């Protein structure tokens, strides 16, 4: 039953084929059996079984939703009341969240059963899950390879069937890149579509939570529960949430797909390019028209991002000072020593690197040259998307330049690691929604296809992804040893 989709599991739960308690226990057993993947930081077995019991009662009463009784897992960036919420950091190793993130509340309200909290790069800063205080996560397709990051635990858990689906967050590619490297479906919604309340902040103008699932239909079901206006998040957008499942089967006849030539040039692995070409041919067969487009400022996305994101991170992470919660150093001699040592001992190397970069970019004398310049470049990148999306309905391209790389391969070279997000970062700067869906394999490792749409066009993206999944079976493949 661990290979079934949400819709099939919902049917099984209603027909009495299995109960939520049985389903939950089956997943808890799998989590224990595959512990070496290191996908989970905390497993909440007791509360999961309690929630499953409550879900079974709710199912029996006939007052259930599609997610009622479905075992899911939360990225450890979402605050969960009474449950350790670490954000992958020593800084929060002792942090029991005093309230729930809105996303957690919404999924609980829908009756989803939380199995536990998933491993991630420290404070969501990383592209390989190797910056986690709790150690790297292994990719179920090749256990010597990284699962991607920062939502690496989410990618590995969903691919290995250690949860039916999971939450992720995406600041520069952190849902789409692990989804691509783990062969699952990931959706980064439009900025503001999903509440950020209780989602520990990295770069506030870029962060967005979204679903990581095995199919587009499951992503539609999960996003339905997660999306919507929240007065507790001042950047949440007050616009109605459509029914994401109703248009899944719409025809793709006449769909205009733009392929930016900047996405298919130097740097893209030729085997990955071959897989993407085959996927695009499949869309042509489904009735889509393909058009080459140009987005000249995309090449500046990485430099702009690595000013803006660290600048926002240096401000956001100033709250971790050893005073009110989180790690505090031993025997501080004065207040400055308390701040400096608590932060120095509590944060890992990549987090420190970004705090330093951001502090520098915001400091007197450099603010205009770096921060304002990057914000201007951000405007030009965002205009590239507006222009492109007035010519075509969606943009397609790679998610990553290569398939999953080896554990330890890039961690010593931060710049090389940053370049692995070259195709995903611009989307966050513009704020538009984008998906990664499984499009094939090379060398036994999955390849993702990226589909980028206009603001609030999540329904269209899900439709385009779903139609592809009706005629292909890449999303149904199971890694060896996890059948």
């Amino acid at each position, binding site marked *: 039953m661990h290979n079934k989709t949400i819709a099939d599991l919902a049917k099984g739960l209603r027909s009495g084929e299995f109960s939520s308690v049985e389903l939950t226990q089956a997943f808890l057993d799998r989590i224990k059996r595959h512990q070496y993947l290191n996908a989970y930081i905390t497993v909440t077995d007791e509360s999961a079984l309690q929630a499953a019991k409550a879900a079974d009662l709710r199912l029996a009463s006939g007052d259930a939703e599609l997610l009622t009784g479905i075992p899911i897992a939360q990225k450890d960036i979402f605050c969960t009341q009474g449950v350790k919420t670490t954000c992958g950091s020593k800084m929060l190793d002792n*942090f029991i969240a*005093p309230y729930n993130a809105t996303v957690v509340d919404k999924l609980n309200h829908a009756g989803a059963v939380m199995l536990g909290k998933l491993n991630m790069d420290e404070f969501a800063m990383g592209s390989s899950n190797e910056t986690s205080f709790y150690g790297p996560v292994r990719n179920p397709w090749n256990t010597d390879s990284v699962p991607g990051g920062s939502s690496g635990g989410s990618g590995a858990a969903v691919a290995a069937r250690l949860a039916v689906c999971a939450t992720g967050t995406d600041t520069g590619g952190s849902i789409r890149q692990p989804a691509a490297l783990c062969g699952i479906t990931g959706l980064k919604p439009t*900025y*503001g579509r999903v509440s950020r309340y209780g989602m520990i902040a990295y770069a506030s*103008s870029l962060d967005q939570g979204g679903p990581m699932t095995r199919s587009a239909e499951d992503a539609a079901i999960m996003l339905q529960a997660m999306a919507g206006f929240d*007065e507790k998040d*001042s*950047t949440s*957008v007050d616009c109605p949430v459509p029914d994401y499942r109703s248009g899944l089967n719409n025809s793709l006849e006449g769909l205009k797909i733009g392929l930016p030539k900047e996405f298919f040039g130097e740097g893209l692995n030729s085997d990955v390019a071959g897989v993407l070409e085959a996927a695009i041919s499949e869309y042509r067969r489904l009735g889509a028209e393909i058009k080459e487009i140009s987005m000249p*400022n995309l090449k*500046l996305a*990485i*430099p*702009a991002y*690595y*000013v803006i994101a660290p600048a926002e991170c*240096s401000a956001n992470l*100033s709250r971790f000072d*050893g*005073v*009110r*919660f*989180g790690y*505090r150093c031993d025997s*501080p001699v*004065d*207040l*400055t*020593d*308390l*701040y*400096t*040592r608590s932060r*120095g*001992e509590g*944060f890992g*190397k990549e987090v*420190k*690197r970004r*705090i*330093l*970069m951001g*502090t*520098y970019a915001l*400091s007197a004398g450099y603010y205009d040259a*770096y921060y304002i*310049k*990057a*914000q*201007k*470049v*951000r*405007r*030009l990148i*965002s205009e590239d998307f507006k222009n492109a999306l007035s010519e075509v309905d969606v943009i397609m391209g790679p998610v990553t330049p290569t398939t999953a790389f080896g554990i330890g391969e890039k961690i010593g070279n*931060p*710049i090389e690691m940053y370049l692995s997000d070259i195709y995903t970062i611009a989307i966050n*700067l*513009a*704020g538009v929604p984008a998906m990664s869906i499984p499009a094939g394999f090379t060398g036994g490792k999955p390849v993702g296809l990226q589909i980028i749409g206009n603001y609030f066009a999540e329904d269209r993206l899900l439709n385009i992804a779903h139609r592809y999944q009706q005629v292909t079976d890449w999303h149904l493949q199971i890694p060896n040893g996890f059948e």
Partner: protein
Amino acid sequence: MSLTVDDVKKIAHLARLGIDTRDIESYTVDLSGMLDLMTQMSNLDTRDVAPMAHPMDQVQRLRTDAVTEADNREQFQAIAPQTEAGLYLVPKVIE
């Protein structure tokens, strides 16, 4: 553009971030590498471009000035490193 070890010490002080002396050299190299990446932007003419701070160009939403939060002091202080009589304790600041 490259930074010196002293630059990095100064930035670390501004961020109140303890850096092990043995690591300062490697942070200097890494940050200089990041700054090299940034120079790609300087070739682009952005004189008439308005900076973009936020994807939606939103304005701050306002609400009525009413109490919306309950008093959760005990709950919040339960996870603090050190408290006394409802206050957060830190080392003495003034002699």
